[in-house]
């Protein structure tokens, strides 16, 4: 509906004739409209491809490049056309945005190229229509992940250290990146070897060896060669302890290091040995001691420092946590249902294995995962029917979330590979500086304000926002009145309210028609946060001259950034916080009034890094 709003404004204004006989006060004068009524066709030449459109079409979005006077910079006098040296394929989408009011993201295009085009033409990506928004977001996220990986890769210690680094820093680097020095490499391989030795020793010591002379029963090797195994274990633990202490010393942030997963694994791996040393040879505690020895197997996780694939697997599982959770939940539900059914189906049978519902859990799990041990089988017909349904559904329930996990893993794995490849290449990072906003008051806003002003005059009430409303409520009880001048010169006019009650979609649509949004408007989204927090105190200050504006909801140009940002910042969704959003525009407007327009905004805009 974006373009439509502008189209229908004359109609809405004309319909205001209906208020005239009822008006309590006299109507304000309409804004003078200087621009010529005649519409003309403009020619836009993009790298040789000529596009033609009505001037009005481009004027719909006065804060973009094509809608504002900025396009005059590209005007070619000789050929009487606007020439842009950009991609004509992309321009097609841009122009369609003006025509239809909806911005579509072409799937085959590179997301960065698209973003750059949007930035050039001054269109914020949030306007992308719902049909393409998801695709856009996914690609954007992917791209950002890739960029983040690259940043990490860059920051990763491949570049040579500054010469004045302390030994501690060098040590840490040696630990994190073994390829830097030979010593580090040696240490890396030694620890890897000892981890392997330790794990193999743990495994082998439980294998039954031939009993020594004088005994009949087979002994596990661990008891036969207990001294040898003890020595091996001691050696391994000494190495691990040494490594752990070294890492602890070298870590730049000890607390963070101690909380990291790898260090916890290290601790868990070596603790059982020390506890075993300390504990007396007591029958009671030896049971617990045996349990502790289980934790020695965690040493195998130390391999994840040595293997990237293992790390990726761990990361995948972490990122698929929701899918795994869903799998678990659905399986649990199914298990409970089927176990109950099977229990009641088999209840009548004598000497049945299904003694209780928890007992039937085992059967259900074994059946659903298609294991089928056969230790519990249904005997009744009903049991068999339900059992077969159980096994069929088990396959389905398990098969559903698995592809999601697999695709996640594949994506992360490939990303990692890409990062590795890119580590070999050089990277250029450009920090784009966004063009600043060009604020101008469009005639649309003027006319809309006049319309709202007429309504005010008809009813002899004025629009305000929530802040002043609550202020007045409080003030009236106190008896203090803020000065409000009701005479508003027509050039100040009204502003389109920032659609606080409207659905997000409509908010965007209204904003579309009056996209008086700055170029660096992506930054605007962030600046709003800053401004909201920083300017709130000022809005309540004794800027009485300004407060007269507060009652009209927003200013034209400033709030539209608010409109567009309203959906995105989580704090300010119009669906939830109806009353608060009017506050934003008024706050914004005050900021505008405070300094000179571009000045104050520049100041604020620069704070955010460009996208």
């Amino acid at each position: 509906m974006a373009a439509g709003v502008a189209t229908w404004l004359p109609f809405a204004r004309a319909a205001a004739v209906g208020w005239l006989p009822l008006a309590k006060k006299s109507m304000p004068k309409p804004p003078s409209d200087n621009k010529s009524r005649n519409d003309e066709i403009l020619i836009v030449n993009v790298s040789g491809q000529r596009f033609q459109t009505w001037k009005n079409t481009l004027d719909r979005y006065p804060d973009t490049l094509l809608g504002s006077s900025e396009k005059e910079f590209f005007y070619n006098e000789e050929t009487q056309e606007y020439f842009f040296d950009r991609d004509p394929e992309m321009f097609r989408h841009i122009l369609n945005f003006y025509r239809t009011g909806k911005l579509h993201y072409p799937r085959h295009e590179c997301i960065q190229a698209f973003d750059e085009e949007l930035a050039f033409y001054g269109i914020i990506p949030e306007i992308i229509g719902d049909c393409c928004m998801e695709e856009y977001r996914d690609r954007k996220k992917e791209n950002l992940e890739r960029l983040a990986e690259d940043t990490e890769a860059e920051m990763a210690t491949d570049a040579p250290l500054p010469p004045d680094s302390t030994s501690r820093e060098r040590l840490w680097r040696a630990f994190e990146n073994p390829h830097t020095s030979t010593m580090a490499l040696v240490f890396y391989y030694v620890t890897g070897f000892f981890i392997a030795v330790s794990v193999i020793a743990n495994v082998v010591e439980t294998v039954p060896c031939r009993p020594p002379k004088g005994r009949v029963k087979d002994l596990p090797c661990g008891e036969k060669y207990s001294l040898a195994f003890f020595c091996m274990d001691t050696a391994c633990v000494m190495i691990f302890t040494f490594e752990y202490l070294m890492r602890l010393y070298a870590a730049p942030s000890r607390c963070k290091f101690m909380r990291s997963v790898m260090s916890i694994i290290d601790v868990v791996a070596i603790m059982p040995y020390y506890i075993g040393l300390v504990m007396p040879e007591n029958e009671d505690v030896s049971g617990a001691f045996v349990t502790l020895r289980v934790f020695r197997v965690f040493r195998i996780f130390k391999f994840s420092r040595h293997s990237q694939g293992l790390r990726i697997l761990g990361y995948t599982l972490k990122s698929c946590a929701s899918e795994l959770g869903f799998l678990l939940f659905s399986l649990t539900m199914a298990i409970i249902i089927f176990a109950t059914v099977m229990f009641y189906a088999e209840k009548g049978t004598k000497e049945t294995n299904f003694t209780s519902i928890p007992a039937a859990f085992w059967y259900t799990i074994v059946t659903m995962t298609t294991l089928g041990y056969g230790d519990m089988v249904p005997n009744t017909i009903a049991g068999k029917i339900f059992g077969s349904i159980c096994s069929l559904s088990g396959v389905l329930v398990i098969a559903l979330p698995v592809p999601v996990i697999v695709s996640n893993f594949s994506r992360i794995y490939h990303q990692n590979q890409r990062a590795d490849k890119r580590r070999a290449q050089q990277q250029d990072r450009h920090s784009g500086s966004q063009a600043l906003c060009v604020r101008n008051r469009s005639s649309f806003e003027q006319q809309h304000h006049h319309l709202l002003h007429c309504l005010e005059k008809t009813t002899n009430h004025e629009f305000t926002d929530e802040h002043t409303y609550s202020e007045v409520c409080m003030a009236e009880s106190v008896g203090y009145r803020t000065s409000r001048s009701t005479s508003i010169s027509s050039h100040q006019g009204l502003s389109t309210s920032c659609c606080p009650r409207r659905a997000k979609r409509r908010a965007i649509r209204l904003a579309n028609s009056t996209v008086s949004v700055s170029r660096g408007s992506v930054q605007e989204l962030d600046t709003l946060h800053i401004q909201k927090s920083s300017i709130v105190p000022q809005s309540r200050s004794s800027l009485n001259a300004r407060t007269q504006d507060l009652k009209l909801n927003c200013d034209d140009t400033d709030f539209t950034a608010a409109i567009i940002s309203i959906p995105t910042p989580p704090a300010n969704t119009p669906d939830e916080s109806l009353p608060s959003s009017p506050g934003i525009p008024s706050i914004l407007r005050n900021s505008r009034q405070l300094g000179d327009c571009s000045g104050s905004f520049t100041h604020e805009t620069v704070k955010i890094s460009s996208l």
Partner: protein
Amino acid sequence: MGIQGMELFAVGVVIILFVAVLKQFGILEPMSMEDSSDSDLELSTVRHQPEGLDQLQAQTKFTKKELQSLYRGFKNECPSGLVDEETFKTIYSQFFPQGDATTYAHFLFNAFDIDRNGSIRFEDFVIGLSVLLRGTVNEKLNWAFNLYDINKDGYITKEEMLAIMKSIYDMMGRYTYPIVRDDAPFEHVEKFFQKMDRNRDGVVTIDEFIETCQKDENIMNSMQLFENVI
């Protein structure tokens, strides 16, 4: 008893599953097959083409270029050529985001929809605009009267006026200064009737309305306000 019941239940479940599978193949319900394919997409076949440019030019006071520009905007917005009431309400509400413009939009819709067929065509749109923007003062007053007269019986009753007034105040929304009191519309209606209803019979006729308005300077002056909207 338990075994018997469970077996019956099991057999019942098997039958249900069987039926579900059969339904999948469309074997069981041949009737539903025909509409299943069609019911997916509901194509809107309602469309309207306006009368020719010349005819419209004869009926209204717009120039050809103005009509062209108006139609382009209209068609862009409503490709089917018709505006139904819901769309109209949505569009109109966008201009008054602070309040609830749907009631007033309803009245406005009825004022524009001359032939009362539930949708505004381009002709209705343009004829209405022509009256509002290029019409004589009398025509405009007539139009306003038509707007207020909800049941189009030629008389404005207090109830009708109250409804209109309430809808206008609804558009203002909650956050106003001074705060809209609950009886504000009622008061406004009283004042209006005091001014307009000459013979105190409780209704305002078109003649009373036009007469009173012509005597009111404010109203007459403001009638010229919106002439340059297009």
